[in-house]
């Protein structure tokens, strides 16, 4: 096993021991309770709401894991000085960054997969207890495989958020990293507005600045296809591929920058 893989497994092990995966229990309880309550209140819309809620919860729970573990991956090691022992081993600094990143992505993959299974199980149960006539009124079947597309894009988005958190944690404190990462997450969802900015301002400087920010900041809105999937609209493969490629490029850039900063850093 390579050094990167060993560090990744270690990060995963630590997350499990840190009871990070307990959030899955909370997720399952939330989903089951919501499906029961919503089933009592709505007629015919409950599957749609559960799909929406389930996908949103997958994203939010994943976001918290990506940010709160992501920011601690490097900064906690530095703060607690455990990095001294680790870097004295035959580990190159960039291997440490890649291993940490891969470990958290592995944690997220397990987390998102279990959430997806739980969501499908609840929806499958709801479909099973409904009459055929009721099922006909739904835009898409309860266990529509297209939901996997939305889940995949949520996962890719979480990979990107993890890279952002890791990048910040290579040079700033955990609190500042968390603030900056959440900030970028929020800004990333409204990034498209920056493109429209030039149409509403006269100043060419402001317009250029907005355009530069539009290209520099991560654009996270395209990863959100929940609404389409919930309403049974198809998400083309080309769209998924292009969005994933954008994420891959952004992640590579962030990891490269993180490795560069980290490789030059003094651990005082």
């Amino acid at each position, binding site marked *: 096993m390579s050094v990167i893989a060993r560090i990744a497994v270690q990060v995963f*092990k*630590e997350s499990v*021991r840190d009871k990070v995966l307990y959030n899955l229990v909370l997720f399952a309880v939330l989903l089951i309770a919501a499906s029961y309550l919503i089933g009592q209140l709505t007629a015919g819309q409950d599957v749609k709401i559960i799909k929406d809620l389930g996908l949103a919860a997958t994203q939010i729970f994943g976001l918290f894991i990506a940010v709160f573990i992501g920011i601690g991956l490097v900064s906690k090691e530095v703060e607690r000085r455990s990095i*001294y*022992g680790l870097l004295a081993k035959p580990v190159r600094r960039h291997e440490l960054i890649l291993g940490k990143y891969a470990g958290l992505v592995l944690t997220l993959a397990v987390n998102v997969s279990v959430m997806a299974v739980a969501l499908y199980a609840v929806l499958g149960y709801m479909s099973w207890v409904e009459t055929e006539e009721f099922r006909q009124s739904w835009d898409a079947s309860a266990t529509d495989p297209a939901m996997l597309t939305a889940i995949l894009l949520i996962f890719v988005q979480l990979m990107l958020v993890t890279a952002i958190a890791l990048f910040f944690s290579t040079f700033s404190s955990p609190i500042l990293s968390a603030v900056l990462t959440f900030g970028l997450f929020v800004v990333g969802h409204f990034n498209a507005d920056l493109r429209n900015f030039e149409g509403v301002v006269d100043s060419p400087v402001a317009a250029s600045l907005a355009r530069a920010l539009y290209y520099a900041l991560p654009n996270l809105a395209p990863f959100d296809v929940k609404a389409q999937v919930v309403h049974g609209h198809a998400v083309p493969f080309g769209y998924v591929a292009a969005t994933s490629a954008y994420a891959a490029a952004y992640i590579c850039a962030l990891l490269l920058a993180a490795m560069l900063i980290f490789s030059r850093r003094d651990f*005082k």
Partner: protein
Amino acid sequence: MARYAIRLTELTKDYPTGFWRPRPVRALDQVSLDVEPGEVLGYLGPNGSGKTTTLKLLMQLIYPTSGRAEILGRPAGDIEAKRRLGYLPELPYFYDNLTAEELLVYFGGLFGLAPAVARTRASTLLDRVGIGAERRRRLRRYSKGMLQRVGIAQALVNDPEVVFLDEPMSGLDPVGRRDTRELIQSLRGEGRTVFFSSHILSDAEALCTRVAIMVKGRLVSTGRLADLAFEVQGWELVVSGGERGDLAGLGLDAVTTTVSDGRHVIELPFDRPPDQVLPELSRLRFQVVSLTPRHESLEDYFMRLVASRQEPAA
């Protein structure tokens, strides 16, 4: 094979201080030092003298402002050199959620050890540093002293040729210090090079083949303990025969201890050299059993050096 296990050449490190107008503060100033294979070198100095900075430069946890640090003929930070060294950081801290056994297996894996080999080695090393059944407890429950022992074990997981120990005695109780002393002695017996920093001078006195003394980022003295210029602070004179009461007449009663078999041990101060006292003692029918000069301790030597480097008070 490299001529030197460790070689520092004019190693210098400046830290910038201040936010708006950072100014460099010199933590290490042109330190040059060679350590031969098999040597146990005590790297001594008070807090802030640059000991930990030197070790961090050797581990490439920080980068030098100028100069060079080499381990086994390779530059600090080189992966091949890292494979052959062990390092105990000052006040070590590891992963809370791992057990001592898991930590050693994990670190062993980073050296490319197969899991079975790493487990066997972990078990042997934890026995060696005196971690018993608690090796299966998570490290978050370990005391400072136990973490220090685990820290020493992890520094040996790769069977290193060169071992760096940053303040290995700190946080240890007397039993822990004795065990660590014995362990360092056994590392020396196995032919490993040991570079350890300390401000506990009695430990260095007992362990080192050579010491290097740091004051304010500078290497001020290096040499075998026997060769360092220790000042004579007095003499220990053992006499027999005569009457204890006669010693009082010579003004020596306060510095005399009478031991069994009628011998008296007289601690002569520096201002009462033996040639002044011996004729008197002879006249009073005392016989000299032994006369040994009393050198200043390493601690006194060290304090004298520190004092000579202090700026005069304004």
